[in-house]
């Protein structure tokens, strides 16, 4: 009988102990924002028959708006899930590659929607899919992870896309480079949370196809360097498929060679700029130059060929077939050489003008300086063509 009483007491104590009550005043906690270290990709899986998907899309939009460009959202409609009614071709947003990615992540006909994958990474044991209520949390966490690579895409026109990849690590990196076509603001059918059917729902960030195959092309990038990768596509073909290119953008992904995570991502809109293409100038260890820039150089090395004491600034330039360079030198007595494909030597004059016709898609550019007497010197390069110009000022400060 005593044992019985003890058992009943244990039962009662257990009832009272194991329960947390959260009063209304303590149910929400405001937390600090975080500084993002990288751009994150949210791949949202959705379907026109999924009642909670509009809520998830609103949530993704809110996350994107508040991310200051640090979040890219792409929405996929895999045909293999029960919520994606692809039978009605008028509202068919499925894509062959969407099915490939969905299957790769372990998606099945019964995977609950809406769901999403963040940066192609598993969130827990063998599971890639994050419920939409947890997207904010996983994205926030991922944004705080330092990145090995960065990807930027310049504005794309005339069927040409260029991705600039920078490797800031001390290791050479192999990766898969993939270009996605994403179309925004597609008006079509969607089942709404209240059960109604909306035939004019605005679908955003819809994945249309992988332009260079589901897993793209294998690439490599050396440590501490940047490279440009060009991709051509047919705008005519895309228009034939019914895509509205004015609403389209290209998303460039650098996925690790073992496909375990997305290393970097970038995006840019497709423009109708029929003028001469803007060029892209990058500096090694700095990245793409987006506006007027000043670089300070204070170290020298010995040029293996000439044996002279030399400073070097090296980078790459893309796309512009014709580019002009004006050089202004503040100090005399500095010998310099500029190479864009071909090299030209400075002649000590205060100003010079050069024109280059770049026959390759990319050209390495570099400038060497041979300071005679270790005095400070400043050279300003003005790179320009009909669509773009920028000033690069290099200051030598010994």
């Amino acid at each position, binding site marked *: 009988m005593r044992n*019985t009483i003890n058992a009943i007491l244990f039962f009662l104590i257990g009832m009272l102990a194991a329960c947390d009550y959260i009063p209304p005043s303590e149910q929400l906690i405001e937390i600090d924002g975080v500084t993002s270290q990288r751009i994150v990709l949210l791949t949202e899986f959705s379907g026109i028959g999924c*009642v909670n998907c509009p809520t998830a899309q609103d949530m993704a939009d809110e996350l994107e708006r*508040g991310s200051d460009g640090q979040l890219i959202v792409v929405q996929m409609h895999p045909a293999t899930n029960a919520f994606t009614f692809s039978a009605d071709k008028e509202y068919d947003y499925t894509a062959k590659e969407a099915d490939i990615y969905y299957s790769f992540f372990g998606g099945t006909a019964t995977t609950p929607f809406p769901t999403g994958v963040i940066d192609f990474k598993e969130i827990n044991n063998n599971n890639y899919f994050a419920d939409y209520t947890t997207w904010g949390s996983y994205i926030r966490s991922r944004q705080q992870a330092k990145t090995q690579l960065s990807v930027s895409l310049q504005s794309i026109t005339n069927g040409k896309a260029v991705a600039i990849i920078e490797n800031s690590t001390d290791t050479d990196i192999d990766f898969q480079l993939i270009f996605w076509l994403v179309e925004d603001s597609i008006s079509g059918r969607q089942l709404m949370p209240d*059960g109604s059917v909306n035939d004019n729902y605005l679908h955003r960030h819809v994945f249309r196809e992988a332009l260079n195959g589901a897993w793209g092309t294998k690439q490599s990038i050396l440590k501490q360097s940047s490279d440009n990768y060009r991709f051509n596509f047919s705008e005519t073909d895309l228009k034939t498929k019914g895509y509205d290119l004015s609403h389209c953008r290209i998303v460039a992904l650098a996925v690790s060679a073992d496909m375990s995570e997305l290393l970097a991502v970038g995006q840019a809109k497709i423009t109708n700029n029929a003028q001469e293409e803007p060029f892209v100038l990058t500096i090694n260890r700095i990245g793409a130059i987006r506006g007027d820039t000043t670089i300070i150089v204070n170290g020298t090395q010995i040029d293996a060929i000439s044996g002279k004491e030399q400073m070097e600034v090296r980078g790459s330039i893309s796309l512009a077939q014709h580019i002009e360079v004006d050089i202004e030198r503040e100090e005399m007595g500095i010998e310099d050489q500029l190479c864009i494909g071909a090299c030209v030597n400075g002649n000590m004059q205060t100003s010079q003008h050069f024109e280059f016709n770049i026959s390759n898609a990319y050209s390495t550019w570099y400038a060497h300086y041979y300071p005679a007497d270790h005095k400070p010197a400043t050279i300003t390069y003005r790179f320009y063509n009909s669509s773009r110009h920028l000033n690069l000022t290099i200051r030598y400060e010994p």
Partner: protein
Amino acid sequence: MSSFLMRKIVFSILLILCYSLVAHADSDISFSGSLQHDGLFAMQDDEIGTEDYSFPYLSNTYLNLMLSSKWVNAGLRVETMEAPLPGYEGGFKGSGIGNIYIQGKWKWGKLTIGDVYSQFGSGLILRLYEERNLGIDNSLRGGRLELTPYKGIRIEAIGGKQRVYWNCYNKTAWNFNMSKGAVVGGDIELDIDEWSQTMQQKGMTLNIGASWVSKYEPQDTIFKSYAPPTIYNLPRWVGAADARVQFGYKGFSLLAEYAWKANDPSADNNFSYAHGEALLLSASYSRRGLSALLQVKRSENMAFRSDRLARGNAAYINHLPPFTQAHTYYLADLNAYATQLQGEWAFQGELRYTWKRHTAMGGKHGTTLRLHAAHIRGTSDKNWWASTKETYYTDINLELNKRISKRWYINAMYMYQTFNAQVIEGHGELIRSHIVVADVKYVTSDKVEMRAELQYLFSRQDEGQWLYALYELSLFNDLMITVSDMYNIGGTDISSRLNYYMVAASYQKGAHNISLGFGRSRAGYSCVGGVCRFVPAEKGVRINYNFTF
């Protein structure tokens, strides 16, 4: 300690135990088990919309081994689903030991260590079970203690980490790390009639029960809003309690059960802090030739999972009975009801009467008539008693079962059904259907039986009218051949009027049962006890093998 080493230790204990038990050659020791293999040679069929299959052969296999003796029981179940049958959730795929336990019995106590199942009362706050058809196995890996210290008193304590597919292979599970998915609970039942001679003499039974269950989960970072960033303060311990009383007297039985759950913000309830509750009332009467049942249930916000972010059928701790009839006829089960955990009012009643043989209605062999009705609505915010105007489900069916002669049997049913597809499946309309079934069996001899079914569904909604026919031939009590076809005669266009045919044969010899079938099946929901799983369309050769030893 690594999970690999832990597994080695457990297996070694089991092997030593098996050896020592067998070595003593005690006649009380018995060894039993079963093997179940369900496979499908899958074929693509774009007409019915089958999936793209990554493997040509899909299968689910289960091997159960059990050792029973006077003092100790032990068992394990090996499962392999590397390429599972269509329609199972993604986490279902895998192989390994899905269940292992050892149980010791002594006097008035029983202790089980390993994977345990249990149910408290009607399961409103705890039901741990395996249902292979749904891919459900929500056992706890931990322990279960059952005590019957005195007559009429049963006490149970249970605790462990809940199985969610293959999470039991995490190091955390083997090391009993309760960092996520930990569940503990207790139950006490008192049979008052055991202490009252008066009650026993009058044939009365009175049972009172009470239970509690609590689950532990660490904080998750779930955003309520992003500007400014605001997260939910989530409770780590969520408790639930249940109380019930059951009374029986001379064929009457009354049950009243109430369950309450504390604040449990989760993906199921959109992170609401409201408490959950369920009330279940049941009255039944039965005597020879007559039975009646009346049940009422009200439930609200009673989804109780060990993982607040889980979706689908994973991680449920409890189970709410559906209060609808589980139909065995295909068209009657075409639109099966799934319990709506956000809230529902459910009513169910049944009356069954058997006319005796050699009476006007009973005829020569007797006649049974059964009337069953179920009606389900949503709960309303207006007050506790109010329900929504919206019907979730209605089912009224009248079934006649009669043996016409020595060799002829007939079962006939009429059913009226309303099914709110928007609420239950997330899309669609209110579907009203009339279903008629005729099921005739002819026994030619002890060794040969034939059965034929004809079913017809009429509806002006959804896919319209359906026709289903089945013929079954049973030979020598061992062999059964079945041919069936389901045809959508009311499809909106010709291309949707498809035949879903099936030819199958099954053979039973002793403890072995094997069946082979070829055909195609329509996409739909497979439901057991109010829990449903979406099954995509499939076509191919089905193989099922069962062996019990």
